[in-house]
């Protein structure tokens, strides 16, 4: 049997979305009523499944072609989304599995429960995955998804977004989030985004146009860095004090 210490800093809930946010109607019956029960961390939390060895397909990270017929490609604005996966101390997280999913350029998902008017694109599936490299870097090629309306009791539209699922090096770092696009006016009025009551935390979910990495006559680049929970500051300080 193994042991562990309190390895990760406590989660800062002030920069996380509220579990109960009635403007996002689905939270009303799905938020927990009791307070979360705080537990000391053990290896159950400070370890996690490791996927660095995973055999991924050559096109898994390329949503422009990974569902398209031979010689075809997805319809839409061709983009790259790239960035670094770091922890809160700034340390890169290598060999981490990132999975993404998104609507097509018209705002339609390839899912049997999505019945939006916009048509499916026969050459777009909408999912991709990759592993971060030794510097924590990742890159996807895709098309910019469309905004779409959703049933929330009113005239609600989601800003264009890409869903991200990230495995760090510990189960305590597990994260699912959404990436938005710089300049989208829907960001200010989306209840899912605004369930985060902290403008800086919202801003951290917005990818920036990155002209330096755009490919002329081909792809517009967006930059999106992801931060996972970091080491326990107390342990870190003690270590520094020992120098």
């Amino acid at each position, binding site marked *: 049997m193994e042991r562990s210490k309190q390895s990760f800093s406590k989660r800062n809930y002030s920069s996380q979305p509220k579990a109960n946010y009635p403007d996002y109607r689905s939270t009303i019956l799905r938020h927990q009523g009791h307070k979360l029960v705080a537990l000391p961390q053990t290896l159950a939390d400070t370890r996690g499944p490791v996927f660095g060895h995973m055999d991924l397909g050559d096109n898994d990270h390329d949503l422009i072609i990974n569902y398209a017929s031979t010689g075809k490609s997805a319809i839409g604005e061709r983009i790259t989304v790239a960035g670094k996966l770091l922890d809160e101390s700034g340390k890169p997280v290598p060999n981490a599995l990132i999975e993404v999913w998104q609507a097509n350029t018209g705002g339609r998902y390839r899912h*049997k*429960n999505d019945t939006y008017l916009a048509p499916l694109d026969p050459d777009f599936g909408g*999912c991709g995955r990759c592993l971060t490299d030794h510097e924590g870097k990742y890159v996807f090629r895709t098309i910019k998804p469309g905004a779409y309306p959703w049933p929330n009791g009113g005239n609600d539209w989601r800003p264009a977004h890409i869903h991200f699922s990230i495995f760090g090096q510990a189960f*305590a770092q597990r994260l699912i989030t959404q990436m938005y696009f710089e300049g989208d006016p829907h960001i200010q009025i989306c209840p899912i985004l605004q369930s985060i009551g902290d403008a*800086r935390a919202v801003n*951290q979910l917005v990818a*920036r146009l990155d002209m330096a990495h755009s490919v002329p006559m081909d792809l517009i680049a967006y930059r999106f860095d992801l931060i996972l929970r970091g080491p326990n500051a107390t342990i870190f300080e003690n270590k520094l004090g020992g120098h």
Partner: protein
Amino acid sequence: MDSLDIRRTRPAKTNAEMPLRETASQTAGPYVHIGCLPNTVGVKGIYPDDFTSNKPLANAPITISGKVFEGEGVVCRDVMLEFWHADEQGCYDNGIWHRSSTNLDSGLFSIKTQMPGNTQTAEGEVLAPFISVWITARGINIGLLTRIYFPEHESAINEDPHMELVSESRRSTLMAKAVDGGYHFDIHLQGVAETVFFDV
């Protein structure tokens, strides 16, 4: 362009050690399957198989099934669950991970795995065998963490230092029920039977 998007939002005192802040969570939404279990919703041909475990288990003698309920008792059919536990010897270096969704029609989730062994706290106290469960779905803004314990470990559970942190009246929400062919474990997101969720 370096990490200019990352705001230095912590107090100056801690900026040197912890300059960055965890990216905020957002709901997985109703279409989580497309990204995490695409073949289950007919997005075929991108990945040969859905990614449902971290390793093939030659021997997976226990089955755990259940449903997830929202506050009015309605079954949730759009949930993704992940399961993480120590191996039979209590070792997390050989830890076992599974992913399942609740069936789009029946709402049932199910995994086949091994019974985890005892583990320990940092202080060396024995923890009864358990499986960590992480739950995401439409309407869940930040993934919920709970645990499954098993009825045959009753004496270890009664001595378990983590179980002591849970109010006695709610401990039963963490217990799987032995049924024909394995175990049943329902999750209640809210209401009188609300499952205990943890912050680690």
